[in-house]
């Protein structure tokens, strides 16, 4: 663990962290968002959600994006996913611009979004078949079963998705995203609809699988504790309209992380205070 930090230390880091992002060498950057702008046309004229937003994410890094609701977090994520059109600027994934949705970006949606008429296995298999069309049926199934087991569903392969609890459904959602072997994981408040106990459980499950795969991950959340526990860096977005990256906080806890240790760490509360302070002003 690192040496304890004072609050002013964290504040001074602001400029440094923002500058560091600009200076990141392109080789280590996985996701590169350049001058991203999003404008929604409304009857009262144009509404600028994001303006000239810049963000770079390292290969294998886990970042959390927090901000007030309505600040454009979800707009940002859906644009990275390719589900939402870009008005201006560019999003590069491994140096290739994003033009539409694709399975190289595994999305974990806020609601589990499983197909209720399929079993857990079939839900994962649908994507795996798309990504590994050359594999034999057994190979494809084995991939699905591996990830379903990793999220703790080894007994529920053949259960209908509609028969699973919300928490279990979201576990399938996690397995589905990882099984695609994506270049990047996009998580849109994935645990927002769960009760706090299940949420904690699923954060552990997510981190456990993520620690093995180290896939670049971008997570949207409004839960400060979740952001700190999961991320290497927390990106704070200014409130909209014309939202941008307001501040960046490095979370310097070692991995793999243990919830209990982190909760007992002095820095945890400083990080927490800093984030809440940002959100309240």
């Amino acid at each position: 663990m690192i040496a304890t930090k004072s609050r002013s230390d964290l504040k001074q880091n602001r400029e440094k962290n923002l500058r560091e992002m600009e200076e990141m060498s392109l080789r280590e950057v996985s996701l590169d968002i350049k001058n991203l702008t999003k404008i929604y046309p409304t009857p009262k004229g144009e509404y600028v959600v994001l303006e000239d937003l810049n963000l770079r994410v390292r290969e294998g890094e886990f970042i959390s994006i927090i901000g007030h609701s309505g600040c454009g977090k979800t707009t940002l994520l859906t644009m990275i996913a390719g589900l939402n059109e870009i008005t201006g600027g560019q999003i590069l994934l491994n140096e290739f611009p994003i033009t539409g949705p694709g399975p190289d970006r595994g999305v974990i949606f806020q609601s589990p979004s499983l197909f209720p008429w399929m079993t857990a296995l079939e839900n994962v298999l649908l994507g795996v078949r798309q990504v590994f069309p050359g594999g034999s049926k057994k190979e494809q199934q084995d991939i699905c079963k591996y990830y379903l087991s990793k999220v703790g569903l080894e007994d529920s392969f053949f259960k209908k998705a509609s028969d699973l609890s919300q928490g279990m459904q979201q576990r399938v959602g996690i397995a589905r995203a990882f099984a695609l072997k994506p270049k990047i994981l996009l998580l849109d408040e994935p645990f927002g609809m769960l009760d706090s106990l299940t949420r904690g459980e699923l954060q552990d499950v997510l981190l456990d699988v993520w620690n093995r795969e180290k896939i670049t991950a971008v997570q949207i959340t409004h839960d400060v504790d979740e952001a700190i526990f999961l991320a290497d860096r927390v990106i704070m977005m200014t409130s909209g309209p014309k939202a941008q990256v307001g501040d960046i906080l490095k979370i310097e806890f070692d991995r793999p992380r243990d919830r209990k240790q982190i909760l007992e760490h002095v820095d945890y509360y400083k990080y927490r205070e800093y984030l809440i302070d940002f959100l309240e002003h």
Partner: protein
Amino acid sequence: MKAKAIQLLNYSGFSWAVPIVKLASGEDIKQQFTILWKRIGMPFCAIVLFLFLWSVAAKNVQTSLGVLPGPVMVYHQANVLWQEHMGERTKAREFYARQDARNTAILQQNPDATIKTVSYPGKATYIDQIITSLKTVFMGFVIASLIALPIGILCGSSKNVMTALNPIIQVLKPVSPLAWLPIVTMVISAVYTTNNGWFEKSFIISALTVSLCSLWPTLLNTAMGVASVNTDYINVARVLQLSPFKKTTKVVLPATLPLIFTGLRISLGVGWMVLIAAEMLAQNPGLGKFVWDEFQNGSSDSLARIMVAVITIGLIGFMLDQLMVALQRLVSFE
């Protein structure tokens, strides 16, 4: 075992029989009897009351064919119709037995002799008419579904197609079968001249009329269902880059199935209602023709026989509906 039986009853539309199963398995008698009274006893009382009012009222209505028949006379005629049917069946069996005996006798005398087999020339009984009606409605329903489902999917997936077709659909939807029938009759008479013996012309006319009237609920429900598929499902399909075909078969159709079945259920109900009218006018053998023939016949039994047909039509319509409900429950994923 018990749970399975109850589930089966619920799925097949016999949920009123559930308390009987529970009674048989020794659950709280008093409670189950209360439920049983509510589910069976009350409707039973209503039916008895209805029959009573009917018989009282019918006695006071004099028609040119005699007094309006009450329930007893109708029940009697139902029996008569059944006896006629059984009688015809026996005659048919005897006819074929005689024919077979004659043919074997001929073949024994001269193995090279050409023999002829004739099908029984007796008239169609009431049960035959019911079977013909069921075949016709089924045929019409299948044709309607084959037309309505693809167009419905198309309308649901593209707003432009929906906007383009909507006026046509809305105008054709309320047209009565009686208006379609002359057109269908003329068209089929002009087009269907092959007479290969697969279908009677009148059968096709009735079936097509049924289709024309019953395809709209399926079409509109399918369109609505496809258009309102959960956007999350569509997003998942987009992220996985499913081909349009895969997207339709794996995501859109399963998600829409409950609504499609609601449409099919309404369509079948409409189709059955339309069929009777179509058969009456197209002279397709079936329940409609039976009613028409009895009306023309004008014997003292005719009104009672028509009432038997009315009750039969109602019961079959009810059973068809229950069948669709059972199917709908099977495909519903919620």
